[in-house]
């Protein structure tokens, strides 16, 4: 082999490697977004060109989507695609992170969630959140659930509120005889349902769930999934999950986010690739990248 040939050979390899990387990264101009059959649905959130930056570095860029009332909406995508970041925008939990900024328009029932007169504390009363790891307070089961109503000054008939919330979270039968026990004595799955009960007790409009089952065994996961399906009669639910099958099982609509790299591959951020009815995403996605991800070929 001559000198020249070997050089072209390596050149081709480099090109192929670059092409492979480009295939993994998202092409920004393409985005599949179907509103078919959902035009008349009431919208809870309208996201219009949302960018989130931490200390000036973008975590997600240009997210536009509508989230409908009393749907379970799932955000899926590989790690680092910004799905949790996006979720935390929705109840302004990102405010707690220094130097986090949200750009673009985020409407909640038509109101600008980041408007100058909006109090994030009030936002979080309406838009509750359940976290990845169960985080019960180091108090009794009762006090965990009663905490929300107490701080909101809803102290009338607290017992009934607590029972209603625990029933709503399918936990009442398991804990009704030990409401004064410390919440740390519950199993992981029970703790997570307690956290959901705690959230329900505030009577929010939306419940955000950030990988709520990632720390749980399959049976507990099944119970929480059933719970989500039951809860959507009353609440709108947005769930982030790294478990595609979970999104498939519980959600009505699924948004697929992907990591996008800039030209010199120094920066990476999340981009919405496809957002559609869950059934469509998992049977006949419009975008090849979605198909590759949900069928486990990349990610």
């Amino acid at each position, binding site marked *: 082999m001559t000198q020249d040939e070997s050089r072209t050979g390596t050149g081709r390899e480099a090109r192929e490697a670059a092409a492979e990387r480009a295939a993994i990264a998202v092409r920004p101009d393409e985005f599949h977004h179907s509103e078919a059959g959902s035009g008349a649905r009431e919208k809870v959130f309208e996201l219009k060109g949302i960018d989130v930056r931490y200390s000036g570095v973008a975590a997600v860029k240009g997210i536009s989507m509508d989230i409908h009332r009393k749907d379970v909406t799932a955000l899926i995508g590989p790690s680092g695609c910004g799905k949790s970041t996006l979720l935390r925008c929705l109840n302004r*939990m990102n405010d707690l992170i220094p130097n986090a900024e949200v750009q673009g328009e985020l409407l909640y029932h038509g109101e600008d969630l980041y408007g100058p007169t909006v109090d994030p*504390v009030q936002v979080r009363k309406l838009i509750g959140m359940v976290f990845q790891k169960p*985080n019960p*307070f180091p108090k009794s089961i009762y006090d965990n659930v009663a*905490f*929300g109503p107490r701080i909101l000054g809803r102290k009338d008939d607290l017992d009934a509120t607590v029972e209603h919330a625990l029933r709503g979270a399918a936990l009442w039968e398991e804990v009704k005889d030990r409401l004064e026990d410390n919440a740390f004595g519950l199993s992981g799955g029970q703790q997570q349902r307690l956290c959901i009960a705690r959230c329900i007790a505030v009577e929010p409009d939306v419940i955000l769930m950030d990988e709520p089952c990632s720390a749980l065994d399959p049976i507990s996961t099944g119970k929480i999934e059933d719970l989500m399906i039951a809860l959507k009669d009353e609440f709108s639910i947005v769930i982030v999950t790294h478990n595609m099958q979970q999104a498939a099982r519980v959600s009505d609509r699924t948004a697929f986010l992907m990591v996008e790299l800039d030209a010199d591959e120094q920066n990476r951020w999340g981009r919405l690739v496809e957002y559609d009815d869950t059934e469509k995403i998992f049977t006949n996605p419009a975008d090849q990248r979605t198909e590759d991800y949900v069928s486990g070929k990349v990610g």
Partner: protein
Amino acid sequence: MAEPGSAAPRTRLATAGAKATTQAMLRDQPRRDVIRNTAFAGLLLLAVSIALAGLIALLVQAFIKGAPALSTDLITNPPSSIYPEKAGFRTAILGSLELIAGVILFVVPVGVGAAIYLEEYADKTRWWNRMIEVNIQNLAAVPSIIYGILGLAFIVRGPLDLGFILIAGSLTLALLVLPMVIIAAREAIRAVPDSIRQGSLALGATKWQTVRSQVLPASIPGIATGVILAVSRALGETAPLLLVGATVFVTFDPTPFSDYSALPVQIFNYAVQPQDEFQALAAAGIILMLVVLLAMNSFAIWLRNRYEQRW
């Protein structure tokens, strides 16, 4: 494929070889390692013994010397510089108790408040907050005599001008242990995981509601432990009190606004008397103080073990 019969003996041989190797590996610890291990363990044991021996020597000496003077008179009788057989620690003990009460009253709100500010509210990217943090660490290491001078200059005289009264002593001791309390309280607050704060905030609680209802209750055992340890240090301090007017000889029960003495100061006073009887009295005072300090420290340890939250 080979016959099973021909393959089996070879497999058995291989297994036997592997077994022998494994046994050799498991049994043969190199001799050098054995010696090193033993030597090192011996050194560590020696270090522990020296520390223990010091403590035991102190206790034994105090008991031998102080035993004759141990009686309830020790607690109930006021001091005397003339009649060692009648002299006790009554006013000094009362003085110490009142001092400590004053320290607690001052140091808990200020110390916990400062800790909450630094942990929950202070923006750590600001230089002044970082400066405060560094200085609190440094203050904890400042010798107590410096606090005595500070108390003399600013509390007894100077801006506050309280005079040589018990409150002045309390405030001086409080300043001395304040950094300890702040550090302990900060650690206790920091030990409360962020997930608890987020859980509370996500329910629509304000920052203050979160701190008051979740963070503080969860950190109380840690804070209490720190306060007790700080107070037991204040109880044993002598040097600053000498500067801010703890007189050695108070024959009346002190009030917050009167002259006062304190247990260690009284012990110091008896110890410097030439008579043997007073030496015995001082030893008895040491026993008394050790008992109180050990009791307080034990309580702190018990508290920590009993209520410490495992996250």
